[in-house]
């Protein structure tokens, strides 16, 4: 990943739940404007990695630099205000609230920073990307379909004007057509300069999209390299890109 200034740099990260350590000494770099993907089987620690970066899960060791500044001790609210935004695997929408309110809350951190006038134009922008959400804007988010929920989760994240967008299994449980749509949007976001850290089980699709990839196995980085290199790696093909690896 030489030549690109890193947006996020994680060094020697250990994290877990209580006494159980689920991540061991992970090093990871996301270059500015790049899509970096983390691939791994169920239980490899992918979700824990994103949660630990955001501080949702306790970090027992390691440091984290965001745009060159040490943010190892920073709280989640500050990271969000700095433009680090996570779309979690479970989406974590506000079910009883309308689509429009969910989106507005996505801009909460920006609102508190004083950018009070941008919300309306950002909502329009999100509706431009996901026209379906515009049709559903007054509907409670709990009544949306799986694909619509994922669109709302992504749209809500975009309301926070992310510099680093972290996506946890955005394709999980979605129909192939919607997955393709979502991956196209991720590609478009990268073109706009958003750096993306993508956690995916669908290794083939993720490698096609990404610039660089990490493979997590039992909480450790087992392999890393440019996405092209890894896609051609025999071990990778055998473990992740064979029948189980994608579509």
């Amino acid at each position, binding site marked *: 990943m030489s030549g690109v200034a890193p947006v996020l740099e994680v060094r020697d990260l250990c994290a877990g739940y209580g006494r159980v350590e689920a991540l061991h000494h992970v090093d990871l770099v996301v270059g500015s404007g790049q899509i970096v993907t983390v691939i791994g089987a169920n239980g490899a620690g992918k979700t824990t990695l994103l949660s630990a970066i*955001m501080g*949702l899960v306790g970090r027992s060791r390691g440091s984290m630099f965001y745009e060159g500044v040490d943010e190892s*001790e920073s*709280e*989640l*609210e500050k990271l*969000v*205000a700095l433009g680090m*935004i*996570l779309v*979690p695997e479970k*989406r*974590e*929408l*506000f*079910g*009883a*609230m309308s689509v429009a*309110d969910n989106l*507005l*809350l*996505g801009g*909460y*951190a920006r*609102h*508190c920073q004083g950018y009070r006038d941008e919300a309306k134009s950002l909502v329009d922008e999100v509706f431009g990307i996901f026209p379906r959400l515009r049709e559903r804007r007054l509907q409670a988010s709990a009544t949306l379909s799986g694909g619509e929920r994922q669109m709302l989760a992504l749209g*809500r994240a975009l309301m*926070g004007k992310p510099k680093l967008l972290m996506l946890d299994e955005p394709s999980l449980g979605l129909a192939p057509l919607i997955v393709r749509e979502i991956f196209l949007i991720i590609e478009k976001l990268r073109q706009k300069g958003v750096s993306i850290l993508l956690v995916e089980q669908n290794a083939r699709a993720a490698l096609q999209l990404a610039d660089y990839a990490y493979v997590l196995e039992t909480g450790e980085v087992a392999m890393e390299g440019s996405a092209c290199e890894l896609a051609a790696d025999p071990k990778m093909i055998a473990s992740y890109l064979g029948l189980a690896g994608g579509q």
Partner: protein
Amino acid sequence: MDLQVALLLGQDGLTNGAIYALLALALVLVFAVTRVVFIPQGEFVAFGALTLASFQADKTPGTLWLLLAAGGLVSLFEVGAALRRRKLGLVAPTLLWNLAYPALAAAIAVLGHPVAWPLAFQVLLSLALVVPLGPMVYRLAFQPLAEASVLVLLIVAVAVHLVLVGLGLLIFGAEGSRTPPFSEASFEIGSIAVNGQTVWVLVASLVLVGSLFVFFDRTLRGKALRATALNRTGARLMGISTVKAGKQAFMLAALIGAFSGVLIAPITTIYYDSGFLIGLKGFVGAIVGGLTSYPIAAAGAVLVGLLESYSSFWASAFKEVIVFTLIIPVLLWRSLKSQDIDEHQ
């Protein structure tokens, strides 16, 4: 009972019901945002009423010392936490709010001679002394346990209630107080006499409920509080601080409690421990709403007020029994109707 008596009892019931409704809303709010069943809600009613009564009796209200002490304790905690995390930059706003503000309020209360002030200013000063206690109680008792189970939080809430009642006895003494009404006006609607304080209570309650609705439905901060109640993780990922949300919920609860106290102080004599029973009736209303629905909780609380008023006529010795027995059919109906609720949702 003739119509005249029925209407009079209805008027009483509505007045009390309005107060219970305010408290029920506060209880639902605090539970939704922090999962705390806020047993000490009633203490804020008593503190609000007795603080106002102290000003009117030209005494320095004990709430002042409580505020200074609680503010001092919170400051100690916060400075300690900031030192541990080596982030002293965060200390200044904390000290301003927990040391400078109570000191300023104390200076005004002691030197300002509030006994000579108009009632509205005395009420404002009373609220200014009591309301900050809400977030301070949250910081001292509940924030360190934010991730604990509902049961642990309930036990702590009972403990906080007992501590506050004890402190109430210490700072206000055992005598009760009653304050003069906001308005001496009295007028007749049809055949029944309506007194001014009743109108005050009803109008003020409606205004407060209306402002809460606007706050939760129209402002981003209000929506953020609701979002925290719906999904804590989701809210945190949007940069909404659950600690701040907890403090805001407790501040609103303290405001509603203290304001309710100020409203009913002219109607009934308030003692240091009167708040508990009043809060408990709000709690019955909140239970009717399943601790989740604001409108049903408010309606349930008004029902409690009416039930109390009519049962005091028919069977005054059993007044409280009848009111609190209401909770049994409601719980039965709820348990039949609802599925298991995940306590973390």
